[in-house]
């Protein structure tokens, strides 16, 4: 069942075509990797999918309904959740409140939101810092918190933008376990990452972009051995 369908999406910034006629389909329950060298358009594509940028051409269908150009809030309500590469949390609110924002905004009642927040805090090993303001957390803890925010109400599709970048191995473990366990329960992911071992480990299928276009969309093993991909990375990091 195709959940997310990207068709012919184009985005230009001045003279630069950041996303050039990209099409791809993601089915329910898939964990798809999105790789490509810096500047290949991955983040722009993610911005478009999460409502932070409006495509110049093309359409995006979520569960069959068009959603390009919708605001991030509306997309969140439709089940598109996006994690940022540079962690974004509500720094002057405590950990629980950070989670409650998402829970309440997406329709949970106060008690249900609170109990979910607590179970997420446990799952993400943030119990010790529960009452601290988010701004007082370490970088890795903030990332885990942002994870929690995105999963207060399990989204239709979770867009993760380089969640493992510059992260302590322990945190990586926790995040990886989290992603794996959710995926086993049917959660759909699009995972942007430079961390090839993780992509190999988690994603059966990968899409590689370069200079705004999709150059290959296949099983991860095949993608990483593809000559074009290796060339795109200029020397490559094929596992």
């Amino acid at each position, binding site marked *: 069942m195709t959940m997310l369908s990207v068709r012919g999406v184009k985005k230009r910034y001045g003279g630069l075509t950041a996303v050039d006629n990209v099409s791809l389909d993601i089915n329910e329950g898939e964990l798809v990797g999105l790789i490509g060298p810096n500047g290949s358009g991955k983040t722009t594509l993610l*911005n478009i999918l999460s409502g932070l*940028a409006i495509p110049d051409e093309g359409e995006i269908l979520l569960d069959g309904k068009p959603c390009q150009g919708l605001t991030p809030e509306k997309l969140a309500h439709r089940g598109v959740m996006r994690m940022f590469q540079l962690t974004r949390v509500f*720094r002057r609110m405590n950990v629980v409140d950070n989670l409650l924002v998402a829970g309440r905004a997406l329709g949970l009642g106060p008690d249900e939101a609170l109990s979910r927040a607590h179970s997420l805090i446990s799952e993400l090993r943030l119990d010790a810092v529960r009452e601290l303001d988010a701004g007082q957390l370490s970088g890795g803890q903030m990332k885990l918190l942002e994870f929690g925010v995105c999963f207060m109400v399990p989204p239709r599709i979770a867009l993760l933008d380089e969640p493992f970048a510059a992260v302590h191995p322990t945190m990586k473990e926790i995040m990886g376990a989290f992603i794996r366990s959710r995926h086993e329960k049917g959660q759909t992911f699009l995972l942007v990452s430079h961390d090839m071992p993780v992509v190999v480990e988690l994603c059966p299928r990968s899409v590689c972009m370069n200079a705004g276009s999709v150059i290959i969309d296949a099983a991860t093993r095949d993608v990483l051995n593809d000559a074009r991909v290796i060339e795109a990375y200029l020397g490559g990091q094929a596992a």
Partner: protein
Amino acid sequence: MSAINVDLAVNGLITGLFYALMAIGLSLIFGILRIVNFAHGEFYMVGAYAYTLIALAFGVPVWIALPLAFLFGALVGWITERTLMRPLYQGYTSWGLMRDEYAVIVTFGLSLFLINLVDKIIGPYAYRGPPLVETSRITLGPIMISGHRLVAAGICIAVIIGTAALIKYSFWGKQIRAVSQNRLGASLAGINTAKASAIVFMLSGGLAAFAGALLSPVINASPDVGVFPAVKSYIIVVLGGLGSVPGSIIASLALGVIESFGAVYLSYQYRDAFGLILLMLFLLFRPQGLFGEKGREV
């Protein structure tokens, strides 16, 4: 073009020149620190008082009082930067991410402080600054103008050109432009960014003070004399594009002319409102002004 229109146009341009002195400084501050200095009007006020009191109370000749007013404004600017602006780029403030709000509150507070300080210490009464030349009426074709205004306009032109040249060609001018474009990069390249900020504030304070001094024979020095010119300069820097010095100059001249014609042909009562309305319209529909870059977050 009829005589009255020429007169209106020329007078508008001359008023615009004075506005430009204020606006250039404000624009530079925005360029280098990304804030609006809400105490800018008080630099003007300080200059008006300095010039007027130095000339009247100490009997100093106007041609010496004028540069002294500039220096005094520069001093106030430097102190402001040194005591209040460091947190904006040195990070040691609990305002953290709310630097914009810190800047608004702290400069707003500074403005109130200076206005009330002067009101209390010197008194609320207006002081008329001595004109540069005593000739009250000079006729140049269709235009009638006071001697002081004519001379002041000339000095203005010289100062504006000098400042523009300074920014473009001098060593510190280049440092300032580098820091304005990319603070981190500039500091990595070895530029003393704190010093650049200090110089910008000194220049800004000096220019505004200079404007206050030049206009004091007409717009007499009083504690809140700087409020109006400040509002004008906010309008101008937005119209011209926050951070663009050439944009500020052009917008200043334009506003001067618009107000000049507007006062006669549209409404004298609301002559000060034209700029405000323009400001609101620009901020709502084209915040980058005429020449600025499209800024701001997603």
